[in-house]
């Protein structure tokens, strides 16, 4: 009896941490930049996100190493020279979706998320527009925004042959399901 109670307690305690959260373990993040020599694009399907519609709280995190580029040398330079992924392994956004999203009603909401964007270890306050789609208890989040290399101290040296654009276009897409332990 005691043990059942303990197990019950542990289970309830664990589910408590999730609350009313929705999670996505395989969110997609793509980056794109137009450069004179060749366009640079990369995709990661390993971002994770937690969204709590009750509080509006939104956390989004992507491992920098998970971005796959067309060219492996580009990928190496992205990690080694620009993002320094061994020092700053994740890029993240922590904030709140300002609008109330009613998860019990299907529909599409245009929303704004305000919070802190952490790229290359440099934190920037950002308000980013996006869309939340509610469909039968599942949530879809998508957004498109610009990250300026300068804002996050990603320096582009003059002595580089492949010129790299100052502005990086970022697209995210996440498919959430209700958090279940």
């Amino acid at each position, binding site marked *: 009896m005691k043990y059942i*109670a303990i197990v019950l307690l542990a289970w309830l305690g664990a589910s*408590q941490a999730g609350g009313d959260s929705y999670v996505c373990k395989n969110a997609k993040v*793509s980056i794109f930049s137009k450069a004179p020599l060749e366009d640079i694009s990369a*995709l990661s399907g390993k971002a994770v996100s937690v969204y709590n519609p009750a*509080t509006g*709280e939104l956390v989004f995190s992507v*491992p920098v190493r998970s971005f796959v580029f067309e060219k*492996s040398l580009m990928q190496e330079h992205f990690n080694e020279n620009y993002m320094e992924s061994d020092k700053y392994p994740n890029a993240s956004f922590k904030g709140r979706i300002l609008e109330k999203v009613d998860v019990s009603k299907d529909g599409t909401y245009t929303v704004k998320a305000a919070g802190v964007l952490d790229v290359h270890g440099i934190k920037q306050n950002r308000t980013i527009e996006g869309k939340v789609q509610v469909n039968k208890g599942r949530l879809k989040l998508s957004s498109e925004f610009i990250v300026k290399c300068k804002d996050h101290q990603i320096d582009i040296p003059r002595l580089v*042959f*492949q010129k790299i654009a100052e502005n990086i276009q970022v697209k995210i897409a996440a498919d959430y399901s209700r958090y279940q332990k």
Partner: protein
Amino acid sequence: MRKCLSLFMLILSSLLTLAQDAPADSLSADSLINALSADGKDETVIAAFKSTRLILTPTSETMRKKDLNFMVVHRFGDVAGKDGGSRTLWGLDNSSDIYIGFEYGLSDKLDISFGRSKFEQLLDLGFKYKVLEQKGDGSMPFALTVIAQMGLKPYEVSTNVFDDYTNRLSYFYQAVFSRKFSSRFSLVAAPSFLRNNLPFPYLEGNEKNIFSVSVAGRLKVTKRMGIVADYVHPFSSFRKDSKSPEFYAPSAIGIEVETGGHVFTVNLANAQAISPINYIADTESKWTKGQYRIGFTITRVFSFGKKEQNNY
């Protein structure tokens, strides 16, 4: 007593369930995201070196699939000593060795290389294979890459002892152990075996087989520039005892600059030759006699392959 405890637990549980309706604090979302994300520690360590070779010693890096590396390596004449000085513009008038080579990635772990040296007109064909890769979590603390190379001297340089064609051949095997200690500092230690079917240089008592060990490292000063140093020690009693000529351990120091696809090295080395088949067997120049030279390496990577990218 036991019943009492159970009851207490149940009450506590129901209290917690009620608490669930309260807004979760930011800590819970944070811990949730931490639980979801992989820590990334088990990732393979990449870019221990910027290039497939330092000055003398190969690194553990190989060309990745469908990447082609084009190399031009140059060693000038003696900076000082009797062949150097202002008369030869500190050696720039002479070239002790010129190497033009290609490396092509057959897979992400295996590449094939081909090159030609001015020194002994040596042609070399080789394979380089990544056996082990260093892991971020320390489960594999170092990387191991193995090299097998065959050398051919197509011309008779200083002798007519090439009557038997197999005498023109040499074989070089190396196990390159490397470790990236930090994003700045990487080190290689590479034991190797060189077999010359005809002892080179062609001297009485010279050995066909030479074991040697190379130690080399890179210390990044900035993100794109670093200091590189190489030392090669041949274990050869003939070379140790020989008085005329005298043999020395090849060593070099230089600066490496990476500019996105290109890697340049400017260096000073006592070794005249560029290929290990040549410099392990025949380094007769001594730093303190002014017999060191300016050298440079230019490499350029061309990517022919495109990775699968499932855009959405």
